[in-house]
Structures are given as structure tokens and as C-alpha cells.
């Protein structure tokens, strides 16, 4: 199993997409910090100190794309055939892919948090605001970022397995998270907080109806549900 996970990580890291996603993710974080700090007054920064340190959360769609690549990417390029020849027990391959997605999502988060803390701290110091990333609320949110990114990546892997099509998965996810879910969410009242985007969001920062723990549990539920659908389809279907 360890060998399969190593192979998955190696496969991802030797694509051009994954290092590109990481650079984009880190670049977005720097940009976000710059905008957040320059557009906010010192008083407002001191009132809500997590602001400049919430940059990683803004880039989660990239982490989702990372996860999608873990599963659907191999169908796109036809390498899934070689993968199943080496490891014909597809359920083991899928489990390895899930672990690889969690690990890489976490690695993205660690890099993102390091950059966010470094750049954010420098920015607030230059601005003259009395804020530290080791402030309770900020630290809590950064911790949520580490877990939240890993789970976004796992969710991406589950969606990628269920669709086995990179473009469908990414377009579908963007439409869902940016348009459909906010609409449904408002119709569903407080149940809307349990929809996947809101549930994952609660891990970064708990909101009205959902605590952080509730967000983690709801997110795991979504990953398990979509992942199970993906596993059934991947195992059942022929690879032609």
C-alpha cells in the first residue's frame, strides 16, 4: 500500500500541472495578503486579525483541482491502464489515491500557511498593526486551513473518481461551489450549512449554524458519499 501511495505522489509531482497549481496557489496567497492589508485600515485589521491570514482559504478551488487530477487526470491521459496493470485491485489503487490526495493537499496547506504567515506578518508589521499570527483566533484558523485543504483535496479526488473526466469534474465543481450551492443554501435555510462547500468552509472558520467539528464531520460524510459512488463506478466499469 505504501508503494502505491508513493507511486501516486511521484506521478503527480512529475506532471506539469501539480507544481503549476502549487505556484499559482502560493502566488494567490501573496496577492490576497497584499490586497487584504492594503485595503483595510489598521483599526479593522486589529479588530479582526484573521483577515490577512485567511488567504489559503481563498485558493481552495486550486486544491480541489489538485485532488481531481489525482483520479481523473489518469483517465484523461490514458495512464490509468498502466496503473491498473501494475495494481489490478482497483480498490487498493483508489485508496492509495485518496491517501495521496490527502497528503498532497496537506503539503499544499503547509506551504500555503508558511507563505501566508510570513508575508502576512511582514505586511501587518509594515502597516503598523499590532497583530500576531500566534493570536488565538488566527492560530485556530491556520490549523483549520491545514485540515481543510487536505479535505478539499480528498473531495476533489472523490469527484474525479465519480466523473473520471477532469474537465467535467472541474467545471462541475466550479459551477456547484460558486453558483449552485449558494442558491440552494439560501433555499434550504439552516440545512444549507451542511452542503459540501459550507461544511468545508466551517473547518476554516466556524459559521452560524455549523461548528468546526460539525464541519469536519459533514465534510467527511460528503467525501465518503461521493468517494463511494466513484469507487463503485471505477471498479465496475471496463477500462477501454
Amino acid at each position, binding site marked *: 500500500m505504501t*508503494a*502505491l501511495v*508513493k*507511486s501516486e505522489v*511521484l*506521478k503527480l509531482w*512529475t*506532471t*506539469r*500541472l501539480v507544481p503549476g497549481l502549487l505556484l499559482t496557489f502560493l502566488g494567490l496567497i501573496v496577492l490576497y495578503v497584499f490586497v487584504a492589508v492594503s485595503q483595510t485600515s489598521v483599526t479593522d485589521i486589529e479588530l479582526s486579525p484573521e483577515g490577512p491570514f485567511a488567504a489559503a482559504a481563498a485558493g481552495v478551488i486550486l486544491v480541489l483541482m489538485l485532488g481531481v487530477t489525482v483520479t481523473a*487526470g489518469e483517465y484523461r*491521459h*490514458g*495512464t490509468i*491502464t*498502466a*496503473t*491498473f*496493470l*501494475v*495494481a*489490478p*485491485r482497483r480498490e487498493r489503487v483508489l485508496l492509495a489515491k485518496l491517501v495521496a490526495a490527502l497528503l498532497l493537499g496537506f503539503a499544499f496547506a503547509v506551504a500555503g500557511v508558511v507563505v501566508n504567515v510570513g508575508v502576512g506578518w511582514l505586511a501587518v508589521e509594515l502597516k503598523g498593526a499590532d497583530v500576531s499570527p500566534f493570536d488565538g483566533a488566527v492560530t485556530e484558523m491556520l490549523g483549520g486551513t491545514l485540515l481543510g485543504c487536505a479535505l478539499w483535496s480528498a473531495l476533489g479526488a472523490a469527484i474525479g473518481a465519480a466523473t473520471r473526466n477532469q474537465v467535467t469534474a472541474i467545471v462541475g465543481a466550479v459551477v456547484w461551489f460558486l453558483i449552485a450551492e449558494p442558491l440552494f443554501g439560501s433555499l434550504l435555510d439552516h440545512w444549507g450549512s451542511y452542503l459540501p462547500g459550507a461544511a468545508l468552509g466551517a473547518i476554516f472558520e466556524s459559521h452560524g449554524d455549523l461548528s468546526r467539528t460539525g464541519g469536519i464531520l459533514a465534510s467527511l460524510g460528503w467525501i465518503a458519499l461521493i468517494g463511494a459512488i466513484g469507487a463503485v463506478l471505477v471498479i*465496475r466499469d*471496463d*477500462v*477501454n
Partner: protein
Amino acid sequence: MLVAEGLTKRYGKVLAVDDLSFQVRSGTITGFLGPNGAGKTTTLRIFLGLVHPTSGTATIDGKPYDRLERPARVGAVLEATGFYPGRSGRDHLRAFATAAEIPIQRVDQVLAVVGLEDAANRRVGGYSLGMRQRLGIATALLGDPEILILDEPANGLDPDGIRWIREFMRGFVGDGRTILVSSHVLAEIAQVADDVLIIDKGRLVAQAPVAELTARTSGAVRVRSPQAKRLHELLGPAAAVESEGALLVQGRSAAEVGELAAANGIVLHELVEEAATLEEAFLELTAE
């Protein structure tokens, strides 16, 4: 040994493989022949666990592929196998060697076997078709397999590439290993295969050693004579005009034709018994 028993695969209304049963002997090159769409690729993919049969079984040494203790002892080069274009040949091999727990040194060995050392660090996107085919073979060889399954390995290759594949196959079975190779290009198979399996519309048409198969199919006698017309009259419908002054005779041996000519005082310029080629055997067997 590869064994198919009652193998059937249905895609909707289309029966791609229809109650196919055969065995592939160890230590041989078995050519798997059939026209395009005969069900060759589907059958090979069923053996490799990629396609689930509707019914029947395909086993390798008694086990389905996904129950083999070491799947890497079976190597496969399939047509639709893709490569990530941005990844180097070496990284491609490293990824799959890692998954199969094969030491990384093996990567350089297989690169040398297929002659890709110089291109190993280049992106696969820039490889020619022949180089990709070699990289596919290198991937299949990672686990030092005892059995190789090749799906149309010569497709799209130039004559050099085709010769390379043929020599590679000969060398591979030289050590008592087994190859099952599909093709619709008969000339390719005829030169290397020991046994031939012929399928058409998903059904087994023939399975035999190449020599036996060509012998089974009727040959013809070619006879050339300045008195061809007279000879044609004597032979009747068994003869057909091949060209000016030459006849092709079916169902008579060269000796019979020669004796008939001598008895009638006919001069012969040429008398040859032409063995049926595998291609003729194939066309005869897969004819409607």
C-alpha cells in the same frame, strides 16, 4: 499458460467476444489474428483484468489477473495506453516501478533493452510513435515478465521499428518465455509465431501451429506452357488462367499435372507447387 474458457463479452447488443475457448502454450509466440473488430483487443483486455467478461473466464496459470500474486510477471503493451506528455520517459518508468515495488535500477536496465537511454530524460510528448512503443515495452518489461501480451505492436511503426519488434519477440521467447501477440498484419505474425489463433466476429475460427495451418489450406500448382490452352482443356475447371501462358491448378499435385502433360506431349516451361501462405489460410478461414 493462458486459458480462455467460454469467454463472452457483450456491449449492449453487440457481441464482441462469443464463447471463446483456447489455450496458449508456454514458451511459444502465439499470434492472435483476426480482422479489425474481431474482438482481439477485448479478449486481451479481459485477460489483463481491464475489461470484465459478461461470462466465462480468462486465467493465467489458473488464476484471473487480479488474483495473481505478482501481476508484474505478466507484461502488457496495449494500444490505448497513454503517457502523460509532460513526464519524462524515466519518470514514467519510475512511477510504475515504485508501484510494483521493483528496484529503481531496473528502470535503467529496461531503458537499455529498448534502446531509449538517450531519450530517457526527455518529455514523452516529444517522442516519436516508435519511441512511445518502445517505452510501452520498457514498462511491460519492468517486472521481468514470463508472459508478454502485445496488442498490435507493429501498428504505425516504420520498417525499422517493425523489424526491431520482431527481433525483440524472438529474443524474448528464446529463454522459454511466452508471448501472445495480436495483429491484423499477417505477414508480421507468419514470420515469428509458432502457433496461430484466428478469431472472427468474436468466435474462434482456428487454432494451430503456423505450419499445420498453411498445410491444411489447399495450395495450388502453377504451370507454364506454350500449349497452355490445350492443357487447360485437359485439366478442366480445376485450372484457371493466371496470365498469358500460365495456369493455376487447384486440387491436383504437381506430379499429376506433369504426368498429364507428358502423356499428351505437352511441353512445360515451369511446374511449381505453391504452398498456401498464412494470408491465404486466413482469408479462406474468415471468408463469409
